């Protein structure tokens, strides 16, 4: 902070004092200009949708057919052409990712200020892209993550890939969502606990959040140092919202039925005020996935005041309250039985109404106060405070000593009774027939949650001769309630035409409460706050099974819970994080370069609010806790002799981090540019990756360290005469990642946790984006290609724990088949070959890939744009090399060797293998038109048809179940079937808007 203040006050002394804007762009002059003529033209190239400056736009000035001058806008979008002879000029403006534009200028002996020259992004449909393009995949109990990343940018590649590839949940360069830095008004918004980009905080506020500035890959931004996966800053200030009224109506068949939106922005008024609001509602279900629905609303209000020329203060508040029903994954067996790959097991009928058991229920308001100052023409400074609070809930069924209520639970499926391979020991074909019939014809609603049954069991569970009923099934709500306070300050100092310095500090304070509450007792009177699995194991000691031992000790019985009560677990996650960064930009003629560095400190700890009987810890006076039931000591210790405790503060994990990056760029005559970036990053692990079982205890995972990443890219772009091309090659090595998978294990009636450390990955590949004008005016051919290899390069270590047991199943054990598995040589008859000593011969090592994104993605399409404001687009997409998420269990010796402890080639190749998805071909089309009425009203529509070929076999994700099946032979294990998510078949989106 002190450094920042020093910078703010000290820099002006060195700063230039003239107030005239300086132009730092490059000029290529073709004609001798008139030295003494005062005539000229200046202006700022901006993005039409958000008045965001467009740097490096190429401006070509013609007189007649002669090129007089060629120049480029500078980093602020500004351009200045002086000493022009009087006359009429035609100026073409083109920039990567935008439609070219033409402006006529008359020079009459003075500097003509065009103010803004606005460009339209070349992909108009992208305007409706937001987080809500992704259905809520229900993976919370699976142990896997679902955090889609959205590729934004004003670049020929990102424009097309960002939109066309989102349908298969493409992750650019294979990177995780948390590597993508998303800023809002200059504050880094990535979740403090998981690192994910929290799109849902503002989804549905497309208009207010439309203005964005983005960088790609390693490039830094003016807002922060960034990582290796780009920086997106959403301006979100009222003055950045497009002025006027706008109403829109959107309907689509793949996610929600209806979106209504209204926006108003004043623009900057003469008195220096600007204000804006944006509200929307997203409602209804869709044609493909039953039970998924939206009841989501969104509001944004902002006000801004400019004081003089130097100061600007803005205040914004926004949130997206509402509910969303989630979609669950099922096995292929279930999809085939039901006859649909978009079957959703999360819902059932209750009194004839569809009810989804898994509902996301949120209201997380965000408040932003931003101050910017331009004390000098070449100095900008800003300070921002952002506070996020509210609730984030996710409902699920919870049950006690009762049958699993999920309709697609494996014991209810035909395959539980019969599998062709005898070694599974599932031999009953008749029962297979019964179960198949029940599923196929949905007899007694076999396909869905049987709410009637859950209620009836609760109705009838009277407690020992009373008329009170204890619920066996309830709907719980898992809450993640954040309090997140952020402060950021940054400066940008244009020291000279050669050097610009940006830098800043930021600080994050986060305290998040994780807990469960009773959301619905489903017809019963109460639920009991005990750990049911522990009860099975420790039935003789009532103290050990308590979720809240302190309550039990005080009251002599477990707490009886009613709707709204917290239960099971309750703890704070505390995160503190501070960073300081600086970026020096050099610019000399056709050369640009930068060097940037960042240093940071992160610490976090857990603070348990409940004392769990299994992990009782110590009394406040440091003595051991004794069970009043058995008089046995409840306090337990880990293998290091440390007390395992659920209540109170954990050890603080803290990390010093530093990162550096640099880059250089050369512009060549004719619109060519070559640039390269390189960076080395140290990132602290997140809270969510750091505890072995955060719901139950304070234990940190072993070997916790920073993630080290090296990343470099080389790029070439060409932008001229409507041609727009980018080619990039990238290489990234990520080392020492940690991850915690936490999944519901029905055999334990509890969550099981796999904490992994030492995960290394390597990502390399090429990107190509191009747009080429075709002979017909307005018609262009465009395409993108992303082709990479993203692989695991280490065998991590794993610690497995179960929430309701002190036992450590795997203790920091290596996962030997994680990064690859051997494939053995066979003869023509399929018999494995051995060498002279009888050992099997390894043919090759099959690599394992970073999952959940196609590693080869391509799009090719036509774009036709008429002066009458019609546009047509047709494109074909191809995706390949997508892989299923792996679980570590299947890559352990235990799983591969089977019950006999002997790993045969068959077992290795079966158990350790990773599933590769089939390649996908998709065809999409869109059409749109807008009308201007009286030059005041603007009415338009866009219609998209996606997946025209109605391909219903496109896997967009999924996961392996983390369970094993014993073989009848006793020699090996089999896997449980994996679960998948599929893409919707043919679907449409129609957007109508009206603006004035």
């Amino acid at each position, binding site marked *: 902070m002190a450094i920042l203040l020093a910078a703010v006050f000290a820099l002006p002394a060195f700063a230039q004092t003239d107030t005239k804007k300086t132009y730092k762009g490059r000029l290529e002059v073709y004609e001798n200009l008139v030295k003494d003529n005062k005539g000229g033209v200046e202006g700022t190239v901006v993005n039409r949708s958000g008045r965001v400056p467009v740097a490096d736009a190429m401006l070509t000035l013609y007189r007649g057919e002669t090129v007089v001058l060629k120049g480029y806008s500078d980093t602020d979008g500004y351009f200045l052409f002086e000493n022009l002879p009087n006359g009429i000029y035609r100026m073409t403006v083109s920039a990567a990712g935008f439609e070219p534009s033409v402006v006529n200028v008359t020079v009459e002996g003075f500097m003509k200020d065009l103010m803004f020259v606005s460009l339209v992004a070349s992909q108009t449909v992208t305007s409706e892209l937001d987080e809500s393009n992704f259905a809520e995949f229900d993976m919370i109990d699976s142990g896997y993550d679902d955090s889609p990343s959205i590729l934004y940018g004003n670049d020929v590649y990102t424009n097309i890939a960002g939109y066309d590839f989102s349908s298969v949940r493409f992750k650019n360069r294979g990177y995780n969502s948390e590597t993508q830095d998303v800023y809002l008004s200059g504050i880094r918004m990535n979740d403090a606990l998981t690192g994910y980009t929290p799109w849902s905080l503002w989804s549905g506020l497309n208009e207010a959040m439309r203005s964005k500035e983005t960088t790609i890959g390693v490039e830094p931004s003016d807002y922060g140092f960034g990582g290796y996966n780009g920086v997106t800053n959403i301006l979100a200030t009222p003055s950045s919202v497009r002025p006027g009224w706008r109403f829109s109506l959107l309907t689509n068949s793949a996610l929600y039925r209806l979106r209504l939106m209204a926006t108003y922005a004043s623009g900057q008024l003469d008195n220096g005020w600007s204000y804006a609001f944006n509200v929307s509602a997203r409602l209804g279900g869709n044609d493909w996935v039953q039970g998924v629905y939206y009841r989501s609303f969104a509001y944004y209000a902002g006000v801004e005041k400019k004081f003089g020329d130097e100061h600007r203060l803005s205040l914004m508040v926004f949130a997206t309250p509402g509910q969303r029903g989630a979609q669950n994954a099922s096995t292929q067996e279930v999809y085939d039985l039901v006859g649909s790959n978009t079957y959703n097991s999360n819902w059932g009928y209750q009194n004839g109404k569809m009810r989804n058991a898994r509902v996301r229920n949120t209201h997380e308001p965000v408040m932003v106060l931003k101050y910017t100052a331009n004390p000098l023409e070449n100095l900008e400074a800003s300070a921002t405070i952002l506070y996020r609070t509210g609730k984030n809930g996710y409902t699920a069924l919870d049950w006690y000593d009762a049958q699993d209520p999920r309709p697609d639970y494996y014991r209810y499926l035909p395959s539980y009774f019969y599998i062709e391979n005898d070694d599974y020991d599932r*031999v009953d074909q008749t029962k297979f027939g019964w179960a198949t019939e029940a599923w196929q014809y949905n007899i007694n609603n076999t396909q869905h949650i049987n709410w009637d049954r859950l209620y009836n069991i609760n109705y009838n569970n009277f407690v020992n001769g009373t008329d009170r009923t204890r619920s066996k099934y309830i709907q719980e709500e898992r809450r993640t309630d954040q309090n997140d306070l952020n402060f950021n300050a940054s400066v940008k100092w244009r020291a000279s035409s050669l050097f610009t310095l940006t830098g800043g500090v930021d600080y994050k304070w986060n305290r998040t409460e994780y807990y469960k509450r009773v959301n619905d007792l489903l017809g019963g009177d109460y639920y009991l706050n005990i750990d049911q699995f522990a009860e099975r194991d420790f039935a003789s000691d009532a103290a050990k099974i308590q979720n809240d031992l302190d309550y039990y000790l005080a009251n002599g019985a477990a707490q009886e819970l009613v709707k709204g009560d917290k239960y099971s677990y309750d703890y704070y996650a505390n995160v503190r994080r501070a960073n300081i960064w600086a970026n020096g930009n050099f610019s000399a003629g056709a050369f640009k370069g930068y060097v940037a560095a960042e240093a940071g400190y992160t610490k976090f700890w857990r603070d348990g609010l409940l004392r769990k009987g299994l992990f009782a810890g110590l009394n406040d006076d440091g003595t051991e806790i004794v069970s009043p039931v058995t008089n046995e000591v409840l306090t337990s210790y880990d293998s290091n002799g440390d007390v395992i405790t659920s209540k109170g503060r954990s050890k603080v994990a803290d990390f010093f981090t530093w990162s550096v990056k640099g880059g250089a760029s050369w512009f060549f005559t004719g619109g060519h540019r070559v640039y390269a970036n390189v960076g080395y990053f140290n990132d602290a692990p997140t809270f969510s990756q750091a505890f072995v079982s955060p719901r139950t205890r304070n234990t940190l995972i072993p070997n916790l360290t920073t993630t080290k990443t090296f990343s470099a890219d080389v790029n070439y772009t060409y932008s001229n005469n409507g041609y727009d091309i980018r080619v990039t090659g990238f290489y990234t090595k990520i080392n020492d990642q940690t991850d915690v998978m936490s999944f519901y294990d029905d055999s334990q009636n509890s969550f099981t946790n796999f904490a992994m450390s030492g995960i290394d990955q390597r990502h390399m590949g090429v990107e190509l984006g191009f747009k080429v004008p075709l002979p017909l005016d307005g018609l262009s051919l465009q395409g993108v290609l992303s082709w990479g290899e993203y692989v695991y390069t280490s065998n991590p270590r794993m610690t497995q724990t179960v929430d309701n047991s002190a036992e450590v199943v795997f203790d920091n054990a290596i996962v030997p088949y994680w990064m690859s598995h051997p494939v053995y040589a066979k003869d023509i008859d399929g018999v494995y070959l051995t060498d002279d000593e009888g050992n099997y011969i390894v043919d090759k090592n099959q690599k394992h890939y970073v999952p959940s994104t196609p590693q080869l993605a391509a799009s090719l399409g036509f774009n036709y744009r008429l002066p009458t404001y019609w546009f047509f687009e047709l494109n074909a997409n191809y995706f390949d090399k997508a892989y299923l998420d792996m679980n570590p269990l299947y890559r352990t010796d235990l799983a591969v060797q089977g019950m006999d402890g002997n790993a045969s080639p068959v077992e290795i190749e079966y158990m350790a293998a990773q599933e590769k998805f089939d390649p996908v071909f998709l065809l999409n089309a869109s059409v749109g038109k807008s009308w201007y009425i009286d030059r005041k009203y603007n009415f338009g529509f866009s219609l998209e048809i996606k997946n025209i070929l109605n391909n219903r076999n496109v896997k967009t994700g999924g996961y392996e179940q983390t369970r094993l099946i014993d073989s009848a032979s006793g020699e090996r294990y089999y896997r449980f079937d994996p679960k998948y998510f599929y893409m919707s078949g043919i679907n449409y989106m129609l957007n109508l808007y009206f603006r004035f």
Partner: protein
Amino acid sequence: MNRMIKNIILLAGGVVLALSAMSCDEFPPVKYDDPEPYKVYTDADFPGVTFTSVADLKAMYEGEPVEIRRDVYIKAQVNSSDQSGNLYRTMYVQDATGGIEVKMGTRNLYNEYKFGQWVYINCNGLSVGDYNGMVGLGYKSADPKYETAYIDSQYIIDTHIFRGEPGKLEPILIDEAGITAKDNYGRYVTVSGLTYGNQIFAILYKDPNAEHEGDNRWFLSYDPSYDGPVNTYGNFGIDTWAISETGFQKLLDDPDFDFNGAIPCEDIQSKSEFVAPYSYSVSQYFRKGSTDLQVRSSGYARFADTRIDQEILDGATVNLTGILTYYNSGSGANYQMILNDLNGVEIVGSDGAGE
């Protein structure tokens, strides 16, 4: 132009209304009404049906499993409960003529089939078969090791077993002869005047994850033919109703525990030969006159590690209430009792004076 704007607004308004109507239907209500209670079946739901007695159903067994291929209805009361975990995936029902096991296959049956509740079972498509001397009702077995299989499939259960009215059920008081009477197998009974036999039967496994056969097994049993000190081991120090996994771990961890001195012996030299804990069912012997009644409890029962009352161990007279079963081990008849829970154990007096 104004008319055009008006038309546009009207059109857009119309679309909004139409879509709203659709989506309102699709986004579910915040509140859901509680569903209706289950249908309670009565005799009126089975018009014209002559109910077969449980005894007659059991008599359909012909020395080999029989799949019933005609409508045979029984009406009986549930006499078991798996709430304590002593029964797993199965329940017993009885009528005035006798009791029978119904191999349901699903878990936590007590949630839907309450003790004393009447059930109607259409046996058409189900099978009767024998398990070591007891005839039970289940599904045709695909595994030759068993005569009947668990029914398992919810669809079969829903189409064959119908819940009736709740009811009360009193145990049948039986005497020593009643313990060995075949008609009583599967019935809910009270045997009075029993005393603790200080004898158990259990099979332990040195490596529970390996095959449960051969030398991996260690029998904790009284063997009259064995000419050694085995008789002196009594209950082998096992004074709980059964042994859970954690209970067994405690026995392994207790340096003083040596199965009443049974270790070392020919079969096992040291407790360290147990590579992992496991939960074990235990038959605790009780005596009525000259007849043994084994109270067989599962290691998964919630009361598995509950110590048998000291008074009982010291010889107090007890009345035991539970389901009477029979097990022919090949070497002889075993009369067993399954406790629904420990409420089935009643101490009536000390030193045999209570009867």
